[in-house]
């Protein structure tokens, strides 16, 4: 009897011992079956998702803001989605998502892709990731004047990165682009799978080199007010080195008319919004198109004579406003990072600024033509008529012609740049009167009806709440009407 009991006890306790030994393995459970371990990351996997994130935000929420402030369209009086933006009534929480995703969905992946590409000597993806990182960060720096850069992307190693001023960021990014261009990204060709991962140029390294150069040109031109000498030196260095610029559009043009695979501006403003008619034709832009008989009016607003709303007049009960034309968007619209037209317009400006205008007219004409071609149109007689380059004009007249044409080329694909360029150059001009006035000059930007900034225009965004509430190094708030470091 006693032995039976002892055997039983033995059973139990050997069981316990076994249990202890066996269950030691439980920490293996920590490998998440739903995700890939981080050491499986490759530049090819990270790059396309980061590009879509850049496209999704710089050409999503930020673009809508830029487009309203460039006065292509305005808030419908019958809906309310963008009322605050249209009234310059900006909150710190407004762009939280776009800011957050630009950092964590785009930039952090570019940085990781750069790091991996460098480690494996994949200089092609290194160039791609560097250019896209520079493009994305440059836009953020332009929006906020200061953003974290030198101490950013360090994860737990630095939870409170300091903000760098825009100029330092520009210098850093230009150096990064130069370093990437100095590597051997030309030899060999990408496999077809790798080329597919390049959702911008499908593996054309020539285009990436051009994109890099054109982006440098854009950044130098942005410095003309604040750092004129450096801007000039930078642009001249490009020309001295016979840098090739974009002759095609750098962007994403693979969107489909399917939920979750569409143009991000369309997806958030049309497909997924309960009111699809928030953005209506602004009198500012339409009056200019109308005055010039510009055929693009149909592409932008669906009619040769669209009804309009005066900028920011969304509280009006004007019955005609109900019929104001809705800004035309398609699920398959491309997203532009730098358009072909923009490339020509920038080159024209550079020629005017530093080379006495040599070749500027041809570049201007090419720009206008490319801008029309975006909509399957041709400028025709406009190039010799209303839009003719003021060859005999002053520099300012020429600059105005270039910038106004550039402004007219951006809606829907690259809206943010219209507002940036206005802040850099002052064009299109600001109207002293509201667009209802008889003395209003078509195309001049007006102070919106419900504006809350005492007649001043926005020049920047407020530092986002999502950063300020988590990073004590966020600088003190600066009103949106204060110019950025490169502003006019």
């Amino acid at each position: 009897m006693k032995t039976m009991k002892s055997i039983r006890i033995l059973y139990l306790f050997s069981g316990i011992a076994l249990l202890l030994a066996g269950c030691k393995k439980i920490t293996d459970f920590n490998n998440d079956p739903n995700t890939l371990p981080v050491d499986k990351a490759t530049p090819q996997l990270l790059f396309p998702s980061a590009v879509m994130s850049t496209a999704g935000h710089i050409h999503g929420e930020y673009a809508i803001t830029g487009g309203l402030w460039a006065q292509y369209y305005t808030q419908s009086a019958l809906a309310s989605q963008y009322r605050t933006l249209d009234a310059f009534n900006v909150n710190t929480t407004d762009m939280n998502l776009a800011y957050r995703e630009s950092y964590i969905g785009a930039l952090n992946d570019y940085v990781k892709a750069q790091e991996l590409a460098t480690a494996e000597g994949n200089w092609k993806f290194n160039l791609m990731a560097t250019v896209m990182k520079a493009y994305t960060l440059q836009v953020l720096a332009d929006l906020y004047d200061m953003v974290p850069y030198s101490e950013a992307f360090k994860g737990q190693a630095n939870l409170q990165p300091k903000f760098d001023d825009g100029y330092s960021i520009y210098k850093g990014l230009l150096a990064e682009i130069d370093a990437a261009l100095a590597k051997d990204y030309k030899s060999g060709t990408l496999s077809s799978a790798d080329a597919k991962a390049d959702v911008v140029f499908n593996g054309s390294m020539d285009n990436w080199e051009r994109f890099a150069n054109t982006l440098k040109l854009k950044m130098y031109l942005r410095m003309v007010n604040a750092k004129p000498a450096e801007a000039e030196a930078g642009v001249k260095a490009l020309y001295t080195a016979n840098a090739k610029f974009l002759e095609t559009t750098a962007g994403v043009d693979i969107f489909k008319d399917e939920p979750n695979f569409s143009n991000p501006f369309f997806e958030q403003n049309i497909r997924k919004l309960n009111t699809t008619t928030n953005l209506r034709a602004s009198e500012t832009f339409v009056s200019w198109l109308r005055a010039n008989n510009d055929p693009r009016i149909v592409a932008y607003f669906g009619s040769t004579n669209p009804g309009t709303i005066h900028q920011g007049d969304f509280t009006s009960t004007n019955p005609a406003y109900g019929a104001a034309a809705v800004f035309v968007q398609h699920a398959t619209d491309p997203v532009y990072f730098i358009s072909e037209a923009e490339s020509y317009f920038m080159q024209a400006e550079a020629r005017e600024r530093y080379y006495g205008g040599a070749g500027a007219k041809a570049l201007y004409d090419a720009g206008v033509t490319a801008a029309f071609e975006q909509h399957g149109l041709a400028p025709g007689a406009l190039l010799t008529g209303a839009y003719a380059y003021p060859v005999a004009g002053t520099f300012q007249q020429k600059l105005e012609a270039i910038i106004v044409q550039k402004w007219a080329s951006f809606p829907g694909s690259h809206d943010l740049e219209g507002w940036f360029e206005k802040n850099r150059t002052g064009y299109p001009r600001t109207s002293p009167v509201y667009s209802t006035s008889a003395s209003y000059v078509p195309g001049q930007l007006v102070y919106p009806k419900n504006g809350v900034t005492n007649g001043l225009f926005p020049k920047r965004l407020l530092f986002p709440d999502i950063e300020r509430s988590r990073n004590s190094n966020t600088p003190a708030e600066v009103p949106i009407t204060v110019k950025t470091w490169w502003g006019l």
Partner: protein
Amino acid sequence: MPFQLQSALKVSALLQFYLSCVSPETITQLKNMKMRKSILLFMALLITAVIWAQQRTIKGKVTDAKGVPITGATVSVKGQTAATQTDAQGNFVIQAAQGNVLVISNVGYAEHEVTVGAGDQVNVSLQQRNAELSEVVVTALGVSREKRTLGYATSTFKNEEINRVAPVSIFDGLQGKVAGADISNVSGSPGGSTKVILRGYSSLVNGNQPLYVVDGVPLSDVRPGSDIYSPDANANKGTATPGYDFGNTANDINPNDIESISILKGAAATSLYGSRAANGVIIITTRKGRSGKLRVDVTSSAVFSKPGILPRLQKLFGQGWDGRFWASENGSWGPKLDGVDRLWGATVDNSQLIKPFAFVEDNVRNLYETGREYNNTLTLSGGNEASTFLFSYGNVVNDGFLPTDNDFYRRNTFSLRGTTRYKGFTAEGSFNYVNRSQRFVENGQSASGVGGSFYEQVLQFPVDIPIRDFRDYKNKFFNVDNFFTPFAENPYYNLYENGSRAKSDRFYGNINLQYKLFNWLTLQVQQGIDVTNSTTKLWRNKNAPKEGSWNAGFNPEGAARQANVGNVQEGSQKFYEYDGKVSALVKHRLNERFTLDGFAGLTYNERGSNILYSYIEDLAVPGFFDISNGVNPPQSTHFESKQAIMGLYGSATIGYNDYLYLTLNARNDWSSTLPKESFSYFYPSANVSFLLTNLWSVDKSKVSYAKLRASYGRTGKDATPYQVLDAILSQQVPLPFGTINFPFNGVPGYTLRDRLGNRQLQPEISTEAEIGGEFKFLNDRIGFDIAYYHKVSEGQIIPTFIAPSTGYNTITLNFGKIRNRGIELSAMITPVRTRDITWDINYTFTRNRNLVTELPSGLNKFQLTGIFDAKLEARLNQPLGVFYAPVPKTDSAGRIVVDATTGFPVAAAEDGFYGDAQRDYTMGLVNTFTYKNFRLGFSFDYRKGGVFYSSTSELLMFTGNHYKTTYNNRQPFILPNSVNEVVDGNGKVTYVENTTPIDEEHQDDWWYANSNRGWIYQHRIMDKTFLKLRDVTLSYTLPASVANKIRAERIVVTLIGRNLWTWLPKDNQIVDPESSNFGRDILSEFGEFRVGPMPRSFGASVRVSF
């Protein structure tokens, strides 16, 4: 000894089966085998149980000291399992042999023993006595302990108390009755979830729900189809369905199957349960069969429900906007209601409807019908001295008060339990199968452009338009094309054309084997299993206003309604949990003075889930809800998780002279969710119970019972799975509305996960001290139980938000310190106790104060959740869950700064404080009157203080239906005490008196955040105080003579009322503050997002025992 050999073999078989945990990878292979083995084993146990002894029939009657028969007293044969209960007349019948000792016991009476003599009749009179002295409480790991030896607070509820209101889920009858517990229904819809918070919130994100333990084995409590399981889930992805509440799985238990519920709140009480018990433990003991004749219990109830609190609307102004009439507006910002007949709605075929421009009384209420809930349970039980069994079948059918059966709940529960005993060997088995089917009408805000949800449409009806008329939703004036407004949809369309369904099959049970090796030592092996397979399906129909119709833009405002493309989402959610333990239990009287009780053991628990969602958006053929019917191919998401805890535990209680008891507990856990370096953690606890009335002889008629308690303990808690390592995952770019998904056009795209892993993660540790006492006076006529506790939770494991510029959005950190301290008081008074009449009062009071005393470096706040600009935050030195939102800017004199152009307040740069989510205190009051066979009970539940965000309020203010929107009769006004800011050329700021009025046209903008951001939140964030008449029951026990006519022993008929009456403060005449569609944890404290009304019900039940 063939049998003994057999039993030994069984023990080893059980062990083998139990030990399968040593190789987790083989678990899936073993899963089926396990089940089969369990069933075989149980069958064997039942067969061996059929052993009878030489016995005869003994009859008897049990009465109290006054000769009143005692119903339901337990009569058992000492040393055997034979037992029975007395009937309504106090009579019992039992099989016993001469010389056997009968033990007669009943709650509230001294146990009585009588030896069976030669006669067949045994009459017993029981002495009433102190309940606490004999009360047995099931404590940690299923071990029963006498309550007097416990050094911590417990609350126990018996079957009858739990079931008095014929509840569908276990806590429906206990709201407001447990000190220290916050129990709420969150959606109020049939089968909806129950939230249970014990002693306040102590965890920021890791979950604050208690652990449910059924017969010693943890029960899986999850919300299939309603919670977001993946930490990286994206709301747009189709994984999250916050607008749906398909219930929590703890509610799968049939309340009729429960013998008792014990609620353990403090660390000293719960620490032995390990990591999952840090929020308290709900111990459920199920009913078992008793030896004696076959017993049949039938319980049936029918309960009918109507909506409770509905929003109070303004009655003065009708349809329109900006002070003008618009036939196509979704709000009441129009002219004054004048009762004059007016054309309204869409113009269809050149005709329009006509109705008086007048307020429609009970407009929302009339929308609802009567909900019906039928709840039936049949229980068969019986047994002999060696073995008992119990079988029960429960059926609940509940069709809620919305029209249609789209709010519906059906549950079938089958339970089979048995015990058998042979010499020192005891085997118990419990097997439960639950089949559940549910339909839920979406609340909250549904995916825009896909399809509408129901209640938010209701809130957008102008107060002069009768909602109920629209039930004919295909009528030409009410259909998609011509519904009166393009800004909302016909709610009946959403009710009839959209829907959801959840189905679930669940098996849970356990086998418990014990062998008494020596008189003082028992060995125990117990294995539990809990498997749920559920599927959910959501669908929304496709529709668009016809070209040229009212809602396609041909209305006075020219506004077009967006098409709904429709969708279908199929979900499969599988959950499993295995729990096993091996214990040794010791019970020993060391000498005259000292006793020793204790146990030690080892436990292994593994649980996991496998969740797959597949969905399509944009239906190819409207009205066909299948995953194949998409314009685009279906997309899928998958989430799998697995976690395990192994624990080694021990407990010892030393008793001294029956008045002093010291208990020491210790446990060490090894958790799979922590990094290897810190996956082992140890936590001890101790408690003391001191029975003053046993030490000093006192006059029992004055002080009948006095006990002091003290305890100190720690609990450890692990992380949710997969917080340790970094990862990359397939990218979904979230846009403000919608996403961009990968793979995109055949290109895969991965992104670094937004959440940084943390290899330094440590377990969360809570430390809690508690003191208290239990006192009874005047022969137990007055008594109270009081507890004070102080709990500090440290090193919270939290996916902390970090600055996006770090490259990541969150990191899982140990941080923070949260302190909860509070007082729990329960008191009972019996003002009247005579032979026929008794009046009992039970009162509970709870006051919990929590405070965030530490946040990680550099942070002074942490946002828990938020909507629009309202945020629920954790802030340093403030209670957990404080509301911050925009406030008006003020000048140095406190005057409100107003925009000189608009007249609207300017929002200050910093958000302002709006209150916190925690209650000032809660109170419960239960009154019970008995008169002969009648029993009347009613209970109040009062919860004072705290604020919540109401989106119902927000939407009603936007639409001008809210009762507050008639401020100043909607006439122009200037905000009193307001100023304008003037900045001169030198940047100097001065303030001048504001003279800009809010004109009639802009009254609506006053009540909308886009235009009046700084002002509006004071009306959206509201006081969440309430007083509810939780239940009223009137029971009548039929006289035995009547019962006997149908050969029944006992028949009780009860009239039931639940939540019949609610009082809300003046500030909130809009929504039941208990409701929430933000889950049932701390985020639910944020408030509600257009959640519908909660039910108010009345009905009757019958309980018959044969």
